[in-house]
């Protein structure tokens, strides 16, 4: 590109859709470019594969881990850039019409390759393995499904997962709306501070969050001073100290674990909902006020209907997170005392019990559970595109 981009652009010259044709180099094939492109690609892929395999096979060559990390960044990013350079050269060498047809796929396929390798192929392979034995060497028909559905632990996990799904997304959204509305009424500085502090747990891992909350749920024998905040408050009110995470009555321990996730996710909901509330046009609120509506009526009748789309988006996002909830349960109770969930059961079948067949069958159950969500996301995307 040798010339500068012209400042004045003729708006009417734009095509109606958002796609751009490449330069019309209706040329012949350039064999040299094709050859250099192909050889270049092969060499880059070969070098990168060897470099990355050497990280694994001969880590001692590189001296220190940090060196490996740095080389991985340089090799990964630089290698990708060089790969795209040769890919592009190859395509430019093709005859004009063919080149135009091929170039979108050249841009698309390397990224799509990772998606295919890491998510699409494994989905089918997982379904396949769910019909095989514990080390995936022979087919056993529907045996794994019979085993997991006959397992009371699995049925309890499903009940717990449903409970999580009923409680956590709804509480997170409700909390997010309340905080978003209330912070909107604070001064600019107060709003910023309150939002930052409630948003902060989003940076904390579920494992660290569990460590934080285990401190709150900590138990000391009666007579000793309670070091857990919850027991300190409880005994202060006259109760006897409780081992909170072992109380199965009314699913109290599961609910206490849900609190951890709600604490982590609330900031996410608040940020999205807050930006939606700020987008509600002021004149609709003014009109309602002139009509004599109370603030509560304005909230339910004017604000909520206008942020409904964001509420649903946040709800679905948290719902997907909760469906796969694992870390919190794994590090606190590992599913004991009736707190197990599907993803934790999966992990224990795969990691501790080495039952690949049953583990993959559990994932297939999860997969079936997300199908309606996939359908929803696609429909949501289509609506958004239509409104673009």
């Amino acid at each position: 590109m040798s010339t500068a981009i012209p400042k004045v652009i003729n708006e009417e010259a734009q095509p109606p859709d958002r796609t751009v044709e490449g330069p019309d180099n209706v040329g012949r094939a350039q064999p040299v470019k094709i050859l250099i492109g192909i050889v270049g690609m092969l060499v880059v892929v070969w070098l990168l594969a060897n470099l990355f395999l050497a990280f694994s096979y001969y880590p001692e060559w590189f001296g220190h881990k940090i060196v490996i990390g740095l080389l991985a960044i340089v090799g990964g990013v630089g290698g990708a850039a060089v790969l795209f350079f040769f890919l592009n050269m190859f395509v430019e060498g093709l005859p004009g019409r063919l080149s135009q047809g091929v170039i979108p796929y050249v841009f698309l396929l390397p990224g799509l390759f990772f998606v295919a390798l890491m998510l699409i192929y494994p989905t089918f392979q997982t379904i396949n393995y769910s019909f095989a034995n514990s080390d995936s060497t022979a087919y056993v028909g529907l045996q794994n499904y019979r085993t997991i559905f006959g397992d009371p632990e699995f049925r309890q996990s499903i009940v717990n997962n449903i409970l999580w799904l009923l409680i956590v997304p709804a509480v997170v959204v409700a909390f997010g709306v309340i905080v978003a509305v209330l912070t909107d009424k604070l001064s600019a500085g107060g709003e910023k501070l309150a939002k930052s502090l409630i948003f902060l747990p989003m940076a904390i891992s579920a494992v660290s969050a569990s460590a934080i909350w285990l401190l709150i749920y900590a138990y000391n024998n009666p007579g000793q001073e309670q070091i857990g905040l919850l027991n300190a408050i409880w005994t202060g009110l006259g109760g006897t100290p409780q081992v909170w995470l072992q109380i199965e009555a009314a699913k109290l321990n599961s609910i206490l674990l849900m609190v951890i996730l709600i604490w982590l996710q609330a900031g996410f909901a608040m940020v999205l909902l807050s930006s939606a509330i700020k987008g509600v046009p002021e004149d609709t609120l003014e009109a309602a006020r002139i009509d004599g509506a109370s603030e509560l009526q304005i909230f339910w009748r004017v604000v909520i209907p206008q942020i409904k789309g964001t509420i649903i988006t946040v709800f679905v996002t948290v719902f997907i997170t909760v469906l796969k909830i694992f870390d919190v349960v794994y590090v606190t109770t590992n599913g004991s005392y009736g707190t197990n969930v599907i993803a934790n059961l999966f992990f224990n079948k795969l990691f501790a019990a080495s039952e690949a067949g049953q583990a993959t069958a559990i994932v297939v159950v999860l997969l079936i559970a997300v199908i309606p969500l996939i359908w929803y996301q696609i429909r949501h995307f289509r609506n958004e595109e239509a409104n673009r």
Partner: protein
Amino acid sequence: MSRRMMKDGRPLSPFSIVVMTLLTLLWSIPTIGLLVTSFRSRDDAAGSGWWSALFNPFASDWTTSNYSGVWTGQDFSSGFINSIVVAIPATIIPIMFAAFAAYAFTFMDFPFKEFFFLIIIAVMVVPIQVAFQPMLDILGPRGLGISGSYIGVWLLHTGFGMPLCIYVLRNYMSTLPLSVVESAKIDGATHFQTFWKLVAPMSIPAIAAFATLQFLWVWNDLLVAKLFLNSANTTVIVKLQQLLGTQGQGQELLTAGAFISIVVPMIVFVALQRYMVRGMTSGAVKG
């Protein structure tokens, strides 16, 4: 009726101030408790609640020995380095591939374009658990034999982050003025040149948004690290989980370990928060 006003002319809302002060305190207390406990001696932490140390700061036994204990004694130092070596490449590598794909989805027209994009949207929701057994086969002793080292984890996080990265960048690129790309074409620029010189630099805010989300996700991940890294290469989060699982360990070491695992994502989060919020509000959803 006279209502007090704020500086910007809106009415002061005492109800909001009181409720938000309480909620903010409630949200901060757990982390404050962790921070305070991590600086208390073993006997102090086991004998009284952390709040009592806050009320009598001069009668308490403050120490940094928990940090030195967990850093060297529990080998959190190597976990910390491993976390950095895992997280930074796993954050940066997907961006290059995703940016090219997002460019194709935004500025090019080709057969099956919508089909490919719907695949991206669908796999954002697919639970990553589907990948574990098949990828253990490919990367483990039955396949390449590289399970346990960093490369497997980089690969997995690159694959898991790719759909979100393509989605975020494509959403952002479709808000760029088409006229800029059009005029580059009139000047005779190829798609490759347009991408490098115009679209990639203009997409930096969206790239920063994704990078923040992905870094937090990779750093805080337990599942992938636990399944695909051996004990010499494992991350600080796995170290913390192992410390949580061992019985009889002093609580004071645990709190210091937890705080060490939080510091880096917290700094990244505070520094890049505004990019992340922008990325999230433009529709970033991770499955």
